[in-house]
């Protein structure tokens, strides 16, 4: 399995990441992605026939908590790291369209 990092792929990832990149930046990412994949590609050399895929790094399961609350952050603390806000809301550049929520 090897993924060819094409210009189209990098551009698609930029769109999915909502990033507006220059040609130079796109080329830079292309090179970077290739290096990452090459590095990870070394794993392909290992013999894994007959080994189940491992989805998690630990064997643990069912690490669950009780349905009990603790206090949340005060509004001003929650808003502090955000680039723009108008208490009590976070502000973002107007979202195109009028979806109330992205949830799907």
């Amino acid at each position: 399995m090897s993924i060819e990092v094409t210009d189209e792929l990098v551009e698609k990832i930029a769109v999915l990441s909502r990033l507006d990149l220059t040609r130079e930046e796109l080329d830079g990412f292309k090179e970077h992605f290739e290096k990452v994949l090459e590095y990870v590609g070394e794993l392909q050399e290992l013999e894994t026939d007959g080994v189940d895929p491992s989805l998690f790094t630990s064997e643990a399961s069912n690490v669950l908590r009780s349905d009990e609350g603790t206090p949340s952050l005060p509004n001003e603390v929650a808003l502090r790291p955000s680039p723009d806000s108008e208490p009590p809301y976070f502000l973002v550049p107007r979202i195109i369209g009028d979806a109330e929520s992205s949830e799907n």
Partner: protein
Amino acid sequence: MCAEKKLDPLENSAYEAVVGLEVHVQLNTRTKMFCRCENRFGAEPNTNVCPVCLGWPGALPYANREAIEQSLRAVLACGCEVGEFSKFDRKNYYYPDLPKGYQISQYDQPLGLGGQVDFLLDGEKAGVRLTRIHLEEDAGKNTHVAGRPVSFVDLNRAGTPLLEIVTEPDISSAAEAGAFLRNLRLIMLYLGVSDCNMEEGSLRCDVNVSIRPKGAQHLETRAEIKNLNSFNFIEKALHYEVSRQIDLKERGEEVVQETRLYDPERDETRSMRGKEAEHDYRYFPEPDLTPVTFTREQLEDIRSSLPELPAARLQRYTSELGLEDYPADLLVRDHEAAIFFDACIELYPKARSAANWILNSLKEEANSRKTGISSLGLEPGRFVDLVKAVDDGVVSSQKGREVLKPMLESDKPVAEIISELGLEQISDDSELREQVEKVLSEHPGPVEDVRAGKKNSVNFLVGQVMKETRGKANPGKVAEMIGEILSA
């Protein structure tokens, strides 16, 4: 075209609709899915938030056991198959209401697969198969103010537990979609896993619609209408979308696979074109959470602890308790009324009397207060005292309704309220006879009519006696007495 939209576009059409739903049900846990913030609607924006649900670097999710248990109840109640292993996955996309840049959801090993919801559609048995049910976290909420180049984001809802129920494309009309959803909602209410309040968004629905020539078996290209939050909107959006697709085909154009939004103000669906709608979620297993596993015994325990569901309850009301179909259905559809009814018949087994009083008088009181029966705070025992008082002839059915109001405003025993208001029915025959004779002597005309065989005049005389006694007489008894006196 505008006027036609109100009608079912499929009537007399050469096409049929193929509809599948994705229903989102907000679970009613106390805290969010992966953090300990409160899971509550209506709080001041961005006050139920913490580093986990705000997606701050280094904060890690911690799954809520109650949310998983509630989900399993729903999954088992819908007849899904539950695997012994389930896991969470990341669904990657960027949107301002999703602070982490991914939603924790379930991809290839959801909690439940398959299943079916059965219901009645115009008195006929119908059923919709389910594809799957999975658990995920909800996103926050965006609002926009006209004329400002910004959107406001409230993340209180971000990270709250959400059940997604996906159906097979088994639905062929807006009425069927509505009937399915109403029934699914009832199941969730009976299970106690959600309040399913559509106005507050705790039950929302995406609708996948395509059309095809009547009788065809294949599926054609579908459009998805997102985020419908009322039965009315679902029906209207479906009607609009079906007629839009029929118009396209008639003009020889193709339906495009796309996401559309329903605009209630214009009563139309609109394409969400552009890069915003372009998705490639690149799911992968959520490395910050462990998988969840269940033993057969655990699942059996949950299954055996499920409450009686709507279909079974309806069956019991009609076949065991002897209620007519209509009142039985009305009770079952109102979860709070059904619970109250069951508590009443434990104390007083005359099911029909209890059902009548709940469906007529008590619901009227609840409706006039814009609340449900449980919020009236009425003890079933006191309510039963009233029903009994009417059944036993202590108070007339008409006057009984006047007793109900003060019962809701004080804790006084029912008998005391009846006597304070002077509403006891006249049980003393001689007292009643006196009143009847008085009325007969005052209305010689109608009396002659009755003697001449005019039945309506009996009703008039009964009415006069009821008036004289301010409703405290038993009308049946009065009519009987009039008959006796006049035939003597």
